[in-house]
């Protein structure tokens, strides 16, 4: 359902014979709330953000000073989830790491969707050889697996949160660009677009005011899946030791020393970050599924 159509139905009020005017927005909200798994996903995401960003206000820990005398302690009343190899409180570490994982995932997912929307709409709207060249570039981008290229770039520039957002955003836009191009192709031959062109509307106006807004539902659904994928990708890169550098960390990075922890039987260093990644990725995917049903679009 497009923004424009929503506006029309809201201004027009309820059709004759209907008791109460129910807006489309309310209808969509109800449809989302009916999908219980998606609602649970949304709650999990909110809780994860609260845990990472508000948690440190309540559960205060020292994440700056290394304390080797208190390394690898099992969970206790002092350290609810024990301590890691350099004596940081593991629960506090989960909060700090969560801030990085969630921020990079969210920002990179949104950035990828924005780039993909622009690229796909321009390619689809322009058509011809410009479209052919732009889409071959997308093909070759998809041919280079993101994890490998990300590791190469991490070897070139020392990675921090900002560079990782930019790099993942610049790698992950390929799939949304294909989706948006496909929708643009059908939209540009619609009567209202042809009419607007006929009465002298410029290309920029058509793309920015009519094509892109009509792909919003596809984009929102895709962005949710993109965020889930970005969180996983960051986790892989950090696990392989090429993510944000110490003392900063993220959930994947907390597992980069996981092998030695596994051999020593320090389960509290492995289970919490792994479960956190799974929970948050599942939650974003569930929200994506819910939004897809709500907008009734084809996602992935």
């Amino acid at each position, binding site marked *: 359902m497009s923004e424009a159509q929503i506006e029309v139905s809201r201004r027009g009020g309820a059709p004759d014979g209907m008791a109460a005017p129910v807006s489309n927005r309310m209808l969509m909200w109800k449809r989302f709330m009916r999908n219980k798994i998606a609602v649970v996903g949304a709650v999990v995401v909110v809780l994860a953000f609260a845990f990472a960003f508000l948690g440190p206000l309540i559960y205060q820990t020292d994440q700056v000073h290394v304390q080797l005398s208190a390394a690898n302690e099992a969970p206790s009343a002092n350290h609810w989830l024990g301590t890691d190899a350099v004596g940081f409180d593991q629960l506090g570490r989960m909060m700090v790491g969560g801030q990085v994982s969630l921020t990079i995932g969210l920002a990179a997912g949104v950035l990828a969707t924005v780039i993909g929307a622009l690229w796909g709409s321009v390619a689809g709207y322009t058509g011809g050889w410009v479209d052919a060249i732009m889409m*071959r*570039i997308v*093909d*070759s*981008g*998809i*041919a*280079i*697996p993101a*994890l*490998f*290229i990300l*590791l*190469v*770039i*991490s*070897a*070139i520039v020392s990675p921090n949160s900002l560079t990782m957002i930019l790099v993942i955003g610049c790698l992950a836009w390929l799939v949304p660009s294909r989706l948006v191009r496909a929708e643009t192709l059908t939209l540009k031959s619609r009567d209202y677009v042809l009419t607007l062109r006929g009465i002298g509307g410029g290309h920029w106006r058509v793309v920015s005011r009519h094509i892109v807004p009509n792909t919003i539902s596809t984009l929102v659904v895709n962005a949710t899946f993109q965020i*889930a994928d970005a969180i*996983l990708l960051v*986790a*892989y890169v950090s*696990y*392989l*030791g*090429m993510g944000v550098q110490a003392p900063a960390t993220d959930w*994947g990075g907390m*597992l980069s020393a*996981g*092998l030695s922890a*596994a*051999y020593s*039987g320090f*389960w509290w260093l*492995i289970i919490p970050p*792994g479960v956190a*990644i*799974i929970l948050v*990725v*599942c939650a974003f*995917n*569930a929200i994506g599924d819910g939004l897809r049903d709500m907008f009734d679009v084809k996602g992935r």
Partner: protein
Amino acid sequence: METFRFILKRVGQSVVVVFLVTIVVFALLHLLPGGPARGILGVQATPEQIAAFKEKRGLDEPLVIQYLEYLGRLLQGDLGRSYVLNAPVADLIIDRLPKTLLLSVLSAAVGLMIALPLGIWQAYKRNRPSDYVLTSLSFVAYATPVFFVGLILIIVFTQWLSWFPPLAPRGDSIADILSDPQALVLPVTTAALGIIALFSRYMRASTLDNLSEDYVRTAAAKGTSEGQILARHVFRNSLTSITTMLGYYIPVLFAGSLVVEQLFNYPGMGLLFWNAAQAPDFPVLLGCVLIISIATVIGSLLADLVQVFIDPRVRHSS
């Protein structure tokens, strides 16, 4: 004729894509601070050394000339030289690639042998409790990083139960690796779990799609039992889309082997790449990226071609 034109077009597209990939890899080599000279001489080279090297190797020539020379060397199978391992990159990859392929083929075979029956069974039991449980499990498995699965398996099966060794088999040849099957169990299981999660989902969806086809209704009307319809008709038709998905799955398979090989110290291309990233050893990194990208392009090309050959409907609609 139609088919021939489609194949020609698809092969042509793939060649263009591989060509663009070489440009990207070449660009990455020149993105390095200090350019390829830095990549070859390593991170510790002084600016003077780099300047001298550039002059000697013709690296101060225009980029277009350099690119054409690079392309010429690629066509001769020259991927550059690893100055960390002191060996040609092509030789290193040729030595490691078969081992990675062995691990990938084993995991894919094990994974599919479980995923395909599972998907059909789920479609048969659709929307019943057992289907919901399995669907939720694959939903969770899809969100689980491969390294986390590996770590959990290592804790459970090497530390608690000591059923399997924590390290993959070592050895120079495929025969050496296969001579220690017990050490292969954990790496193969780790890689196979992702395949099971994904392909049981595809198989379920594909089976459900096929169940709504006319030929299923015809077979049912003629009195064929649902079990027989599934085994004899639907399964074979579903395989079309599964083969296609396998072709597209190649990059994921390589990414998985990167983690599995690092985790279990398995001497394949993934471990080669990971060690090169730690060094960093740019000729090896970019050589691997190029080979994996070409494998990806060939995979999706084969997927499309296989579909044309086994499904006549695709041939006529294209």
